[in-house]
């Protein structure tokens, strides 16, 4: 046995938190396993999706949050499309990632959040994604400096598929608007998580 079920977990609000933020009724899951059966990434996950649903039902936040499952979810929506209990499992996976990043529970994976952070920064500053900067910054920050530069990245550059110059807003006032929008979103998000946790 990997762990023992702590009875106090069941009583705590983890399931409610996840249900509120995702707006999905996780207690509805009857563990049929259809989501796990079709998940293309389940083979690489610590726990298959159905098991995560069960662990959320039982309030096992430590195991859920320290597992790689939600980070390995590619959002392909296969599970959501076929769940007989009409649970949007992909959205639950998103929610778990959002909760992890909001810091309300312990975080495990580091790679994807770094990528996400750079990605969104890129949108904030340029409105678009600046691929080379993205790949470079990502590789630097995630400590895999040469990953993907060779051979695919190199060939991409040769084929003219990767821009050397970042996209820019045609209209500078749009840039200011954009940065302001991101600021507002960050404020609202903090409120949201605070509210749900309260």
């Amino acid at each position: 046995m990997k762990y023992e079920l702590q009875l106090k977990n069941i009583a705590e609000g983890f399931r409610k938190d996840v249900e509120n933020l995702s707006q999905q009724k996780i207690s509805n899951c009857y563990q049929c396993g259809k989501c796990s059966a079709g998940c293309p990434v389940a083979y690489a996950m610590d726990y298959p999706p159905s098991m995560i649903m069960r662990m959320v039902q039982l309030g096992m936040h430590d195991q859920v949050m320290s597992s790689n499952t939600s980070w390995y979810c590619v959002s392909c929506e296969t599970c959501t499309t076929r769940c007989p209990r009409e649970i949007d499992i992909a959205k639950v996976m998103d929610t778990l990632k959002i909760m992890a990043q909001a810091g309300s529970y312990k975080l495990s994976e580091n790679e994807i959040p770094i990528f996400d952070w750079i990605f969104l920064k890129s949108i904030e500053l340029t409105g678009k994604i600046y691929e080379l900067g993205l790949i470079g910054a990502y590789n630097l920050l995630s400590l895999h400096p040469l990953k993907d530069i060779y051979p695919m990245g190199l060939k991409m550059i040769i084929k003219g598929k990767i821009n050397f110059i970042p996209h820019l807003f045609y209209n500078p006032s749009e840039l200011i608007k954009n940065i302001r929008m991101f600021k507002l979103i960050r404020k609202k998000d903090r409120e949201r998580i605070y509210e749900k946790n309260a």
Partner: protein
Amino acid sequence: MARIGVFVCHCGTNISGVVDVSRVAKYAESLPGVKVAVDYKFMCSDPGQNTIIDAIKTHNLDRIVVSACSPRMHELTFRNTLERAGLNPYMVEMANIREHVSWVHSDNKELATEKAMKLMEMSVSKVRRSEVLTKMFAPIEKRALVIGGGIAGIQAALDIAAAGYKVVLVEKESSIGGRMAQLDKTFPTLDCSACILTPKMVAVSQDKNITLLTYAEVTEVSGFIGQFEVKIKKKAKSVNSKCIGCGVCVTKCPNKKSLSDFDGRLGPRKAIYTLFPQAVPNVPVIDRETCTFFLTGKCKICEKVCPTSAVDYTQQDELITEKFGAVVVATGFDIYDHSSYGEYGYGEIKDVISSLQFERLISSSGPTEGHVVRPSDQKEVKNVVFIQCVGSRDESKKRPYCSRVCCMYTAKQAMLLKDHYPETQSYVFYIDIRAAGKNYEEFVQRAQNDYGVVYLRGRVSKIYERGNKLLVKGADTLSGAQVEIEADLVVLANGLEPRKGAKEFSQLFHMSSDQYGFYNELHPKLAPVETAISGVFVAGCCQSPKDIPDTVAMASATAAKVCAIFAKEKMEVEPLIAGVNQLTCSGCETCYNVCPYSAIEMKDKEVKRGEVRHVAEVLESVCKGCGVCVGACYSKAVDLKGFSERQILSQVETATMPITNS
């Protein structure tokens, strides 16, 4: 002026220990109309009842109040007492001073006594407004109609006939037998379905009390318990009674364009056909929609080859009207159509078959004579995957209920397959095993332990057609593993749902059905075969999914209920029912619309001389006395006997008045 007697019971010390019963009796004496009031130790005992009878005689009483226990306990007792004394039995009221007073207000004897006095006084004011009610009787047509000739209908018809009553059995197909006739063997004993069903089918055809109408349907129903009037359409079979069932016509008919629904559309069916070899009656019918002669005017081969000239192309549909005293509805089920499951191929992958198709494949009288082969290429199979709960326990398909038999029949099918083909391997994907019946769990265990069927706990996510194999992608949630199986054949455990058209059918009888179309029983526990419509009973899978043992038990239960009705000369009906004052009725139809029992008819009637109006009328033998119509009528034209407006209002008035002298 009413002459009322009041009798206050001690109930040993149950009442008198808390309530001052003599004070209650004394107070009663002071009330208008009360001629005598006494208290006594045990009112319900024989001497107690005799006290009442004597008092009625000596004081010439015409109505009685018993202040004692709950009317739910002894109202009937005291009604009988009144009858014995020669009074109308409905002239008694009980004041409940035990359950509602002495037992619950023992904390304050003074208040308890005052309340007892009050309750008694309320009963006195009610009984003063009681009316003489006569027991009602309705005539009974002692013939039963059974609709649907599956095992449920067959059993019900046989049981009613065995009691000596006439039965008409109406079946819409050309033969009786229903779904059970399509099955190969049956769980949990694995006896051959035909072997146990055929004798019963033959018994139906030979029973003098049973009239069998196949290829027929009920089209209209009116009337009520004891007196249903039913229109039945007998569709033209194009074969008359001279037929000896030789089958030459079927053999010789060149037209085999249609697929046999009975065989799960896995094999052809002639234009003239019997449903299956052991059909009862063994008379073929011509499907006029596909017969060459009816389509083009040419052919007539069947007519030529028939040795008895039984083929008759000129036959017409026939509409008959008959009267019945009671009806058994046993219209059975369909299986869930899995074409809504995209992940299982939208019903278009040939080698993904339904459970009923599997029954036909493995049945020696089926389209492949019992060879389990792939419908796509007729090759034998090695690996077979069974998927349970298809169209059951699935909210996304609006089928959240469990179909109850599919766990069992899946185990059966996997075992039969192994019996026929020892080299095959079966895999069953399940969510839970529901095998709650006598010897059922053991049966499923046998499939796992003795037959080597591999049970995997999970739902299948998708079936991929790859080459001539089917790749089944599932999970085993117990081990947390994903499972991929290369199968030759996939058999789905389709859930059970009501027959197509069940909703429309239920409207013939005003029966209610649930959101899926299963007919509602009157009470889920205590009246499981009755419906809200008196005299109409339900049996078998039209009420909910069930297996053959439960179906048969339910069918016999309906027969007992029908016989109980027929055993009486006349039907006694409680007179505590509604009545319409047609002079004040405005004809608004509100009552007609709200009555849960369809006990109200709207009629054009001469209410005063020369004044014909649209008014409501209560069907006395149908009304159950719920009073919904009374609460609904804006014109105050309906009232309820035994709980009339005047009676209840007088209770209200008394309840709110202070006690006059105490």
